[in-house]
């Protein structure tokens, strides 16, 4: 009988440990690093990037040009960085500056929430806050395709 109670005791200890860790992590932090509702009425492109992701170097100049081209008619671009170390992100930004907004998601909570399946991943969110388009990776030859998705979202019931 004693081994059975031992096992149960072990299991209880583990569960306690796991749950306490989760509780401590989220106690004193606002829920997420990005608040889409703040941009209701605008089209938001949420682009998940990291310093170690090679195609991200290609996507940043393009995202900058999209920001310049469409910021005035309501496009907001937010580059969500998933680097574990903040310094890696700022190193990348020195070399590939972003004129759009940069947010930080070191634990990947937001990435998980959006269901990121590969790096980089871009999500186009319409003025009504609904997801309208997403693309995985970044191919230079597909830039027109990505831009078309943004334009479609901008023109959607632009009123």
């Amino acid at each position, binding site marked *: 009988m004693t081994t059975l109670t031992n096992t149960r005791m072990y299991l209880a200890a583990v569960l306690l440990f796991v749950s306490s860790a989760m509780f401590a992590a989220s106690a004193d*932090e*606002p829920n997420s*690093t990005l*608040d889409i509702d703040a941009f209701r009425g605008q089209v938001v492109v949420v682009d998940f990037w990291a310093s170690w992701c090679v195609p991200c170097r290609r996507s940043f100049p393009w995202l900058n040009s999209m920001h310049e081209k469409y910021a005035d008619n309501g496009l907001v671009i937010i580059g969500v960085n998933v680097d574990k170390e*903040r310094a890696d992100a700022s190193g990348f*930004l020195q070399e590939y500056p972003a004129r*759009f*907004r940069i*947010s930080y998601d070191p634990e990947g909570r937001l990435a998980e929430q959006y269901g990121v399946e590969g790096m980089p991943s871009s999500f186009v969110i319409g003025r009504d806050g609904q997801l309208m388009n997403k693309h995985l990776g970044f191919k230079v030859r597909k830039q027109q395709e990505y831009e078309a998705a943004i334009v479609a979202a901008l023109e959607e019931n632009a009123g």
Partner: protein
Amino acid sequence: MERRVTLSLTEDAWIGRFQAMGSPCEVVCESPRRSDAAEMCELVADEAWRIEDKFSRYRDDNVVAQINRAADVTVELDDETADLVDFAATLYQLSDKRFDITSGVLRKAWIFDGSDRVPSQREIDTLLARVGWHRVSWQRPRLTLPTGMEIDLGGIGKEYAVDKAVARIRSAGGGPCLINFGGDLASTAMPCRRRCWKVGIEGKTPDSAERLVDLKEGALASSGDERRFLQKDGIRYSHILDPLTGWPVFEAPRSVTVAAASCTQAGMISTLAMLKGAGAEAFLEAEGVRAWCRRQARASNINIEIT
């Protein structure tokens, strides 16, 4: 004045508060992690206190005190101080000699406490003899101040501190923060948890009404201070002094608020506008900068949208 940063959590941002350069300072930090926010606020406060210690004219152990004590003796300046003096020299030219860091001594004659004690011309003339950047010998990095003269970097200090704090946050890879030193403020990056920063500027005096600012990126600085003035024979003497005449600038606006890429730039344009006196609005318009001039006593609630 005990130097401590208090950190508190509003519904979607951390706010760090501390005192520096005689003003209430605030850092609005979007980062979700308390540790990150604390680190950012420490960085900003550290920079503000560093610049205050180094350039405040109220201390007797910093480089400004050393310069002001060294009558007719050449002082070799460190790079940062030399940069600031170079900057002041450029402004001296740009403002037709009206922005003059040696004009601080005029304070001895003018005490703007709302009374009617206007100094006599003779008092002003004796002080004017000790004012004038052209009297100073400046070959970087060597500065020689004639006896009796003083320099005061107060006019640049606070806005410069805001910009240096922004630079430290960016190089530390900090996220979007809004740094506000008593109404002079700048954003380190466009916010991601809100459309733009919504910040009230307390203005220079406790009782002036709140001004609501929507700031996405860049900086905002104001100069002018409704409370500090003199009133005699129906004439209101503003606290902005013209270093060439020693008298207050005629018909200077009560305050000028300017938006620009950096806080230093915004601050200097607002100061130059104040020095234009009646011509402030025309100057601001000619410069094509986003600015707000206020001349009536009662502050109106202006919603300044800066994209």
